[in-house]
């Protein structure tokens, strides 16, 4: 509360610093700033003194030096002779990968559980409530450990697939579930396969185009085309057709047990699976609550009004309930995504090579550059969170309900 009158030409008194609203806020801010500077100075000088005493210095030159260690999952070229910086990039990409995968599956788990919690089937409702409560109330770290233990202890080792009478067999001869990971067939791109891929991409576009067309037709002429089966057909048929016309250019490479491990195919390492699954199922429980709250936030009156207008249940969901529920669901959903990204730093528990494990783990240890590594680590996570919350603000502003 500040009040200004015509500049009274009264002389400046020291007490005005405290009692005059014009100066008081400046005084306060100067004090706050002073305290802040003092705190930084205190911490900074301690840091300098301690570093001097320990004979350390702050330098980022280690980033260019060879890392010297190997990483088990690298999506970009990396060998033990690559630099620590490259190792950090490997970690960043692994972090983003597991976060991305977990966001998708957590959403799926969460939506299913959230919707089922509102089911009018008592058993299903209760089952989902148990799922949500159990997973929400036990630390994610314990879940990661439990699921990793299931992965490593309860699934067979690759050598169980070996020998005359193997104790385990591959599923459909194409999928192998081992305690080192899951092996699935990988596509082999033959000549002409690009055409198939292009067709596939086009048919996805086609599905959307068809749906738009159907809506437009409805709006223009009132004719309602069926959408579900045609969409499915557009999605699959052209690709399959082209696939055979081109002479099956895309083959599958099946994983097979060679030497110590399965070779060929796509390998999804146990650490990735454990972390991915644990994060998804844990966060899924939270998302389920958000989804339930979102749907319940749309009052019964809304669906009743829609029903009274003659809309069918599916349409009520699509046209009335979901658009409103999504506004409520999406902001907390995005903060759950943020949580997933942050919790993915628990990767070190299962030996998954995310940024915390490479830059903040092995590099930190092998070089001893603790301050530098931790600082870089924090900057990385900050950038991610600020980006996501920036996006969220934009979304929130764009969907705000118009009020009087």
């Amino acid at each position, binding site marked *: 509360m500040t009040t200004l009158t015509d500049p009274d030409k009264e002389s400046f008194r020291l007490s005005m610093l405290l009692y005059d609203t014009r100066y008081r806020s400046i005084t306060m801010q100067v004090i706050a700033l002073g305290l802040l500077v003092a705190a930084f100075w205190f911490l900074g000088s301690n840091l300098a003194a301690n570093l001097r005493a320990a004979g350390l210095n702050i330098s980022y030159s280690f980033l260019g030096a060879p890392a010297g260690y190997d990483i088990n999952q690298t999506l970009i070229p990396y060998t033990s002779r690559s630099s620590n910086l490259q190792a950090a990039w490997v970690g960043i990409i692994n972090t983003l990968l597991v976060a991305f995968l977990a966001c998708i599956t957590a959403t799926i788990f969460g939506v299913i559980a959230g919707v089922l919690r509102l089911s009018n089937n008592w058993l299903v409702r209760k089952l989902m409530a148990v799922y949500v409560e159990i997973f929400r109330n036990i630390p994610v770290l314990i879940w990661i450990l439990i699921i990793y233990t299931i992965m490593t202890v309860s699934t067979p*080792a690759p050598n169980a697939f070996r020998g005359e009478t193997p104790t385990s067999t591959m599923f459909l001869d194409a999928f192998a579930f081992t305690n080192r990971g899951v092996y699935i067939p990988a596509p082999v791109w033959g000549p002409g396969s690009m055409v198939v891929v292009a067709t596939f991409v086009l048919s996805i576009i086609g599905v959307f185009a068809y749906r738009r067309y159907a809506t437009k037709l409805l709006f223009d002429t009132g004719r309602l085309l069926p959408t579900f089966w045609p969409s499915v057909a557009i999605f699959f048929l052209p690709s399959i057709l082209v696939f055979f016309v081109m002479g099956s250019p895309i083959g599958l490479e099946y994983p097979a047990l060679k030497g110590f491990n399965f070779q060929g195919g796509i390998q999804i390492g146990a650490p990735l699976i454990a972390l991915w699954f644990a994060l998804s199922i844990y966060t899924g429980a939270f998302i389920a609550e958000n989804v339930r709250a979102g749907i319940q936030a749309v009052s019964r009156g809304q669906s009743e009004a829609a029903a009274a207008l003659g809309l069918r249940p599916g349409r009520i969901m699509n046209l009335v309930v979901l658009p409103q529920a999504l506004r409520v669901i999406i902001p907390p959903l995005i903060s759950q995504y943020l949580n997933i990204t942050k919790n993915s730093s628990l990767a070190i528990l299962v030996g998954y090579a995310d940024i915390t494990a490479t830059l903040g783990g092995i590099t*930190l240890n092998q070089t001893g550059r603790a301050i530098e590594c931790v600082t870089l680590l924090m900057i990385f996570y900050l950038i991610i969170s600020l980006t996501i919350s920036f996006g969220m603000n934009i979304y929130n502003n764009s969907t705000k309900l118009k009020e009087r």
Partner: protein
Amino acid sequence: ATLDDVKARGKLNCGVTTGLAGFAAPNANGEWEGFDVAVCRAVAAAVLSDKNAVEFIPTTGKTRFTALASGEIDLLARNTTWTFSRDTDLKFDFIGVNYYDGQGFMVPKALGVSSAKDLDGATVCVQTGTTTELNLADFFRANNISYEPVPIETNAEGQQQYLAGACDTYTTDASGLAATRATFETPGDHILLPEIISKEPLGPLVRHGDNDWGDIVRWTLNALVAAEELGITSANIEEMTANTTNPEVARMMGTEGDLGKMIGLDAEWSKRAIMAEGNYGEIFAKNIGEETPIGLARGLNAQWTDGGLLYAPPFR
């Protein structure tokens, strides 16, 4: 200075592994025992006159150096390899070597592997933040074969993964492998491969910059080694002190000269250190020697007089 801190505290904070049978592990009563533990106890006995005045702080490959650098521990006795960069860049002082070791591989017999060079494509469990991890990368690279590392934090985890078959082979210092294998239900099902792919001089270390403290620890370790060479054991030490004719023994036992004073301790410091858990040979035999389940031979760790590398500088 560290010595004053330790005295004021009345306890020595000693960093050890989180658990490696024979080297450092709590027994059923929660008391720490082992080859590395003995070094800590000897130092505590020398400095504080009480071999039990030690606080054992378990550290992993990752946390050990921060613990030491931040002053949380006074001494790290955790099968840590003496390397150039640790000594210089990380600003630590290795005060000697208590075990000359090298990195090896352990595999299940059933795997049918007889050489590390056959491990192409294998999955390897390795503790992160260790020299082991770096040696491993170098070894496979040098031999132009591939592998998949499974990074783990503690020996216990490594053991769990290895036994569950999540990795084909476990690699760490050969002594560590032997110790780990000794705890298996059926140690006979596992073998160590013949290759030793690195030099791993393991020794205690302290922070750089406090040379007085470094001297105390260094000479305590030397006293243990020298005692074996001179035939002083925890059993005969009283008698030796009284009857010795060897001036070096007399100097060590504090009956002649004032070595203790030179490092800021009393005259009997080394006597107490030796009495704590015995001399080097006794410690070795009791914890990891051939009589124990771990069953390590002295090998390189024999006295120089027996053709080994142990060679304590003179007490003079």
